[in-house]
């Protein structure tokens, strides 16, 4: 399963859950595969790094997003999931989304709130996000 398929499946998944989202969202000098906001009322932001197989690199990226995002997930195809990946993601507080061959997505591990969050960076990411959404709507 290619990374683009993982991204597509994840976008569908968070859309169903009511998130507004953007793919390829610039975040802290990197590009998050998916960044979203669960309605202004709930005010929860989410960043998702999608990887076809290199989950270590994915977790490294995901850790950085924790500085500016409430919940951070790594999304991988089902065949990539191992105990080692799950343990490492759990240790870092990164959630795990698993994409099965039918392109359905399940949450294998919930994201934990991290101590790394810097409120001003979160605020800036969110502000850019809403501006971009307005531009796209406009």
């Amino acid at each position, binding site marked *: 399963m290619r990374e683009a398929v993982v991204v597509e499946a994840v976008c569908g998944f968070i859309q169903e859950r009511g998130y507004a989202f953007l793919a390829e969202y610039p975040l*802290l000098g990197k590009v998050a595969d998916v960044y979203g906001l669960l309605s202004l009322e709930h005010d929860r932001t989410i960043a998702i790094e999608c990887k076809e197989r290199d989950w270590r690199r994915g977790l490294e990226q995901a850790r950085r997003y924790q500085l500016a995002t409430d919940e951070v997930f790594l999304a991988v195809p089902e065949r990539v999931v191992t105990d080692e990946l799950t343990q490492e993601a759990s240790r870092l507080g990164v959630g795990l989304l698993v994409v099965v061959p039918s392109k359905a997505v399940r949450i294998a591990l919930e994201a934990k709130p991290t101590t790394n969050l*810097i409120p001003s960076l979160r605020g800036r990411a969110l502000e*850019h996000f809403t501006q971009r959404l307005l531009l796209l709507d406009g």
Partner: protein
Amino acid sequence: MAREFLHLLRLGTHAEQDYVLRGRSFFDAIVLNANLVEGSKSAIAVLVTRLQKPYFIDPVTYAFALDPRLLRSAGPGNPRPKRSFSALAAAYGLDPGFVGVRPVTSDWFADDGAVEDFAAHVIDYQRTAIGNALADDAAFLTSELSDRAKWVGPHATLAPYFVEDFRDGWRNVNVRSLSTHASATRDLRGGAIGVDSRQLTPQNIAELAGTYAETDLDQAFMWLTNFDEHAATVGQLAGYARLTQFLASQGKAMMASYGGFYSLLLAFRGLAGSSHGIGYGDKRDLEPLVGGGLPPARYYLRPVRDFVSLADLGLVAAGISEDEFRSRICQCTICEGLLREGGVDGLIEQFTETEDRLTATGRVVAVATPRAYRLTRFHYMSVRAEEFDLIRNTETLNLVLGTLVAESRWVEGRLGLRATAHIGRWHDAMEMTEPV
């Protein structure tokens, strides 16, 4: 007594002049590439006189032997040679018609007369380029800057040089150039040794060291092309140290053309100075990357003596106090100012500030703001100045290495081994070689 070790800054583009002037207390001397001088002589000349610091002009003669496409103006279907290189070729006594069309080869300099004529032109250019530009500048002659005329001559002139690839016969040309220069000058006999680092086997190192030790060179820049201190193996690093050490032991004052902190460690193996740029100038490939847009702003992380992404700065600094930031990461003028203004979070916010830009393909991308660029660069210049002072004032290599290893361990806990692995290699390479 403090160790003598020259801190040189290399001007990469005209846009960097403001950094050079504002940061003039951070370095000892400046290196100007001849093509940059040729591209805007008046502006560079005024910079030199305002700066009032010694300067060198790197004649960049090696560029004429590279793929000629690199000497053409950018743009599809535009085969025009770059004006600065055409003008430089003419100033060096060569027919500029070859620029951008074909490379020079060592055959061009087969007879001694050709080498002598070329070297004479190249050296004369370095001696006179700034002075001539000022003489042509009426505004300068009538300004208060004219009393700074003593700064118009270079600190030393460099013989023409081509990059040694152990194949094309350039070593013979280089050595004859040095010899011509030595016999024609009463000043410091300067040069540059460019070596393709990918060919730097122990045997080639021994050959090079033996050859250049026998020249009349007093002072030379050493450029290992395609050499990345942070990625090099222990063997490559030790080879660099041995070459430096041998030449220093023969009385040659060697300076790194492009160097990071490893080149500073080589002060303990006889290196006399090191040069770097304002952004990414601690290494340079033989054939520079072309295009790709503005490089991302990066943060020079003092405890690991390397650049990290701004996101990694966030990871390293998240959750620590201001005092911990000062003791573990940085307390340079820039960081101190930002810490006082907004604490650690505020500092991270300032360094990671971005703005949206539209790309040529219509995508919106976030790039560092001009302010973030300025902050990262002045921070880098400031930390580099501290590093040179550390090397000058620390008595033994073991003290420097001990501090380096200890400081990097804390970062390893936050960023992993990928951010610190080079420190172990530097340590091992230095241990494999002896002081001069």
